[in-house]
């Protein structure tokens, strides 16, 4: 064991700065997902804290707790997805290196230990940086006001044991995902590297989603009978099914675009989407969810604002709008990191193909355009689906306040999309480097 860990450490130190980039990307992704998770949990913590000390007659305090829990549940999915993205980074390169080590005589146990050490080290470094990010975010977050007063740093702070638990959880999840990867290597070293037919996602996914949505309608009618816990559980299942349906829809739309594409960049982008619909979905789903959340909550706020002469109800409406914007900011950062990291890793993994294309006369702007489309096609579809329907519902209610809210939501969504595209652009130098001789 010591020999394996010693060898791993030696290899880490000798790695050229150039080869270290996938590691840095993984650490970045772990850091952002940890910060996002801690901030979401911190916000929930604040409302739970407030509800605990609320006067007995305050009927709104429990609503805040429920809303915070729902928001947190919604945020956890994209955050964990980003964690998964981080764990998958550099898998191809890692497997190549492990295969070399196996050939050089390392036992599978040693190789396994080295992989797990690498996963754990990346996750730990990222999680520690993420915890620092959370600590730094506390001061700006405490400027936000809910229920008519600012969130205190002490309300948002989870306490050292909880933060440590989250860091440990991130490391554990990463190691678990590393074990998953190892099992695949054990099954067949060639099976991992060789690219075969893309797994065609089956239409069974649609059926599953149909059932869950049906369950939601039933439970929604019977909330009184089945209780809050079951209702929230089914709601979580509905959110989870978005992740079941999403890749399938992404694949179908990719196939449609590939069939209709006229230009080479659209064709290449669509084929890349079809090639790995899950990864494409991972990089846009967070934003789609955030957008839907922001749009839906603005609908809700306007309807609530219409009904409410009650001042506390008006405060609640404004708070929901603020909260959903905060959630949108969190998912935007998570989504942008996800897209940026996935795309950067792809360029690093596909460097030889990029280079061959460029040598054969493909201009670099073409490569940039294909990458941009690979992101904007699913991103556009997600934003339209996630926002247009709720916003259309909003239009009939649009008085002056509603229009202000509408504009704010649209601006926030546009900013979130711009952030994602900017994250993509950050990996442009990698493309130029990949094609340089």
């Amino acid at each position, binding site marked *: 064991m010591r020999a394996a860990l010693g060898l791993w450490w030696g290899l880490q130190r000798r790695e050229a700065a150039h080869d270290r980039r996938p590691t840095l990307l993984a650490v970045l992704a772990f850091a952002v997902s940890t910060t996002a998770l801690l901030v979401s949990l911190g916000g929930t913590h604040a409302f739970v804290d407030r509800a605990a000390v609320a006067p007995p007659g305050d009927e709104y305090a429990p609503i805040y707790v429920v809303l915070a829990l729902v928001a947190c549940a919604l945020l956890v999915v994209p955050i964990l997805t980003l964690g998964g993205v981080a764990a998958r980074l550099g898998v191809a390169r890692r497997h190549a290196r492990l295969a070399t080590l196996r050939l050089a005589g390392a036992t599978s146990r040693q190789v396994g230990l080295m992989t797990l050490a690498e996963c754990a080290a990346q996750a730990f470094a990222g999680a520690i940086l993420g915890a620092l990010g959370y600590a730094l975010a506390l001061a700006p977050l405490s400027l936000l006001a809910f229920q008519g007063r600012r969130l205190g740093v002490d309300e948002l702070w989870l306490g050292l044991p909880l933060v440590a638990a989250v860091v440990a959880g991130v490391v554990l999840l990463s190691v678990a995902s590393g074990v998953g990867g190892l099992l695949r290597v054990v099954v067949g070293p060639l099976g991992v590297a*060789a*690219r*075969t*037919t893309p797994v065609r996602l089956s239409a069974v996914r649609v059926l599953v989603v149909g059932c869950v949505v049906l369950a939601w309608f039933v439970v929604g009618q019977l909330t009184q009978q089945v209780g809050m816990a079951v209702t929230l559980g089914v709601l979580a299942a509905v959110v989870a099914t978005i992740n079941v349906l999403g890749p399938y829809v992404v694949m179908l739309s990719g196939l449609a675009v590939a069939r209709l*594409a*006229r*230009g*080479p960049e659209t*064709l*290449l982008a669509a*084929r*890349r989407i*079809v*090639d790995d619909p899950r990864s494409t979905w991972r990089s846009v789903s967070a934003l789609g969810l955030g957008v839907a959340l922001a749009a839906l909550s603005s609908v809700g706020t306007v309807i609530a604002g219409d009904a409410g002469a009650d001042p506390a109800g008006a405060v609640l409406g404004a708070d929901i709008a603020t909260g959903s914007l905060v959630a949108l900011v969190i998912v935007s950062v998570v989504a942008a990191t996800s897209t940026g990291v996935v795309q950067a890793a792809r360029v690093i993994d596909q460097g*030889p*193909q990029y*280079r*061959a*294309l*460029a*040598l*054969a*006369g*493909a*201009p670099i702007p*073409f490569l940039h355009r294909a990458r941009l489309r690979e992101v904007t096609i699913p991103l556009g579809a997600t934003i339209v689906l996630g926002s247009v329907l709720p916003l259309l519902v909003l239009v009939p209610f649009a008085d002056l306040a509603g229009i202000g809210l509408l504009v704010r939501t649209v601006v926030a969504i546009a900013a979130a999309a711009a952030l994602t595209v900017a994250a993509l652009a950050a990996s442009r130098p990698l493309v130029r480097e990949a094609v340089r*001789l």
Partner: protein
Amino acid sequence: MRPHPTAVTAPDTGDALVARDLVKTYPGVDAVPALRGVDVTVSPGESVAVMGPSGSGKTTLLHVLAGILTPTSGSVHWRGRDLARMGDAARTALRRTDFGFVFQTGHLLGELPALENVALPLMLAGVPRREAAGRAAAVLATLGLGGLERRRPGELSGGQSQRVAIARALVGRPGVVFADEPTGALDQQTSAEVMGELTRRCAQEGAALVVVTHDAQVAGWCGRTLRVRDGRIERPATPDRPDLATGTPNTSDRGTPPTPRDAAARSRDEQTVWAR
């Protein structure tokens, strides 16, 4: 043969690819020139193998001839234009329209089916998709890949992948096809099949072929062989043998088809030459 209206500027080059006095020095601390005064003429339709030990400069020579690298000094004339004096964008466009490339395996785009891999260069050149796909399918068929159009590179054997790469190189009707170790990842029999297809199809299309290899058997498929060592052409090239650029191995000097034993013998031969 295409006319060469700008032949005035390079009177004796015609449709040939003509390099004169190529010097290439990579920037760096130990700036040993990778090429030091190389003259090469590749006539239309002929096939030339470039052999040499690792680090001899053979890949650099290929890259300079193909307009991928600009030489430190010297000229590369193609259809009357000097590649060394062209801008980067113009050379990129020229590589797309006038040249074809075959690399070692693994350089097809894994996400695209074979047909689209072959159609991509045409689409990049602005050919509408339907026409590009039709032409790609036709070229694939001539390489015995009819019926495999929907397969992706991961679902093809090494030899099939290289034939797709050959189709991609030829689909734009290039004047010269450059191949860098095209059989480097193949077994001997597949390698012979691929080289046979490559030389046969280039000859049919009237495209010249430049193959960088360290495999004497691969070189045997070409009309003549240039040996590069320490950035120079080692010995005068044998006369052009266009009769051998038609898909038959260059075996007349030994009278038997190439075998591993021959290859080994020849490589010993070369070592003695290089040792001088």
